[in-house]
């Protein structure tokens, strides 16, 4: 495989709470993104998945947030050392981002057209007229009919799905190398969710844009993702190709998570597996322990006192659980076709 265009190495992002308590939202995170690759980062609320993406674009509010250590290499350049003006060049142009709630990310008192044109004119030398033409092209590209008229609309005149597509159009205006999508379909209806995902995938094929999709929904990425990272408590606990992770999950959390999703294609009598307990409060998880230990039925004393070593199970498949063999029975039940 070619050189990765984005390398995240040992990233640690913390939030300092009142009283000086440190909350490690992202704890020693590393991953690579290649050209045209679709990387899915899956985790429940509080797992640090959004913070890890915001860290890549240095969007963490300081204080209280602080990127404590690590490297973020975009084509070899360390973004954590880049100047603020260099970051402004990169954001929205080389690396773009779309957020979960399209209605809160769009400016309600500015027309859709002006918002897209603003981004185009910031990053290119196009004149206002050319920028308007480009904005129209972009809206057409994301399947919004009558783009020339709709440019003059305000966000409230767009439905949720159309707002999200306008966000995609805005993010794609400079043909970015990487598009980070933070829960892109969570607020949308299922049929619209399918449209938006298909759209993102088409754009990836057409413009060679790498996608980083952050979601809590395992299902939506199974079809599109090349690589899948499962996050828990600020760390990647398992990663691999979509086939590795979904068909041969190793970590007890991954297994539990897959079994907790009701599947339409399997009989109802199969039962829903649950993971007992609640997602952890990051401030209370000791650094030298497995973050999942409190909810894991295979946990031993060592899990609570020693940080689990990750290991490569195959060339692509990584898992951070030394006791994963114990879950072999449960693993068999996941893989049902």
């Amino acid at each position, binding site marked *: 495989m070619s050189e990765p265009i984005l390398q995240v190495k040992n990233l640690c992002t913390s939030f300092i709470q009142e009283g000086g308590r440190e909350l490690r939202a992202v704890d020693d995170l590393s991953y690579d993104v290649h050209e045209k690759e679709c990387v899915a980062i899956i985790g429940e609320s509080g797992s640090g998945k959004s913070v890890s993406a915001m860290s890549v674009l240095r969007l963490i509010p300081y204080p209280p947030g602080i990127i404590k250590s690590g490297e973020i290499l975009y084509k070899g350049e360390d973004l954590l050392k880049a100047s603020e003006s260099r970051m402004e060049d990169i954001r929205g142009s080389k690396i773009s981002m779309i957020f979960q709630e399209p209605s809160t990310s769009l400016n309600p008192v500015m027309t859709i057209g002006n918002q897209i044109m603003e981004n185009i004119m910031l990053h290119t030398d196009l004149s206002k007229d050319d920028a308007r033409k480009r904005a129209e092209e972009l809206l057409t590209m994301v399947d919004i009919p009558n783009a020339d008229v709709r440019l003059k609309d305000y966000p409230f005149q767009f439905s949720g799905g159309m707002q999200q597509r306008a966000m995609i159009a805005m993010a794609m205006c400079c043909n970015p190398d990487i598009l980070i999508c933070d829960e892109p379909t969570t607020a949308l209806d299922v049929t619209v969710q399918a449209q938006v995902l298909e759209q993102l995938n088409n754009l990836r094929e057409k413009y060679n844009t790498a996608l980083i999709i952050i979601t809590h929904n395992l299902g939506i990425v199974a079809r599109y993702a090349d690589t899948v990272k499962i996050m828990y408590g600020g760390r990647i606990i398992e990663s691999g190709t979509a086939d590795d992770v979904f068909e041969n999950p190793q970590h007890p959390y991954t297994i539990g998570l897959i079994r907790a999703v*009701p599947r339409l294609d399997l009989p109802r009598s199969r039962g*829903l597996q649950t993971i007992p307990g609640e997602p952890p409060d990051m401030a209370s998880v000791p650094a030298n322990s497995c973050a999942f230990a409190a909810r894991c039925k295979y946990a031993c004393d060592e899990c609570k006192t020693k940080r689990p070593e990750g290991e490569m199970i195959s060339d692509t498949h990584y898992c951070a659980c030394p006791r994963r063999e114990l879950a072999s029975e449960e693993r068999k039940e996941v893989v049902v076709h």
Partner: protein
Amino acid sequence: MSDIHNLSAEQEPVIGDKYELSDMLVVKDLKMHFPVTKGLLKRQVGSVKAVDGVSFNIKRRHTLGIVGESGSGKSTIGNCLLMRCRPTSGDIIYEGHDLKNVTKHGMRAMSKDMQMITQDPFASLDPRMDIQAIISEGLEIHKMGSKKEQEDIVIRMMEMVGLNPDFRHRFPHEFSGGQRQRISIARALALQPNFVVCDEVVSALDVSIQAQVVNILMKLQEELGLTYVFIGHDLSVVRYISDDVAVLYLGKMMELTSSEELYENPLHPYTKALISAAPIPNPTVDRARERIILKGEIPSPINPPKGCNFCTRCPQATERCFNEEAEFKDVGGGHFCACHLIGGE
């Protein structure tokens, strides 16, 4: 229960040859239109046809799932069933009582028997009340038991939904989303209802917590003999918990059948699209499936299409679909569907 039977003195029960006794709830041609007004004089210029002619029956101890996109009218149906809004027309017959004729006073007595659990566990719990007060509020309103008895009920309810009763003097903000939803369930069940409307109860929860709450609801149904209407937008969750599933689109029912049949033999093009859009967390299965991507979005219920409600997005629509409404009819074995292409002449 006893209050419910006292009501029959006020009104004649309508149970006769018409309705099967096993049906706890019968809904006939329910319509709920909200007026759209304009100008100083609030002249009515149109109406939002939120629910437009829906009929179904629910058997005792069964669960009816209602699935639909936002704007399909699924929550409005839930609100009508509990008389939170008075339907424009149609009948809702609960345990033989036509709810249309029940007075406000009578409805309060009935509310003990019919409860609702809502979507947002953050908005639905009063932040200034502790858990004990939240769960026992209904008991107080209905003057059930002494303070001591009420506290015992609160403790029992909390244990039932898997919460530590020692936390009963804490406030909602001290609980996570999943725990708050359990508090909502405990509050609804404290009055020992027989019928519960669950409106998007797991939509706001994480996957692992969603499974916990779904399992609690199913366990409680088994133990307490509850009847549920389970409203949701996620077909996989709705199908999992329901015996029968109704697919709603723009205020009309598109398909109604048992949840097994719905997946194995979906008839309506909209149901097929919903099934194909529901994600399956397995790449081999998901990539092999046919994917139907619908164009556009759900139209406005103020101005629904002239023919079949789904005609504007239907991949198989014919000319007839644009002009003529499709009748909601039994196409065999209790499988109802409203589509010109299915079971037609």
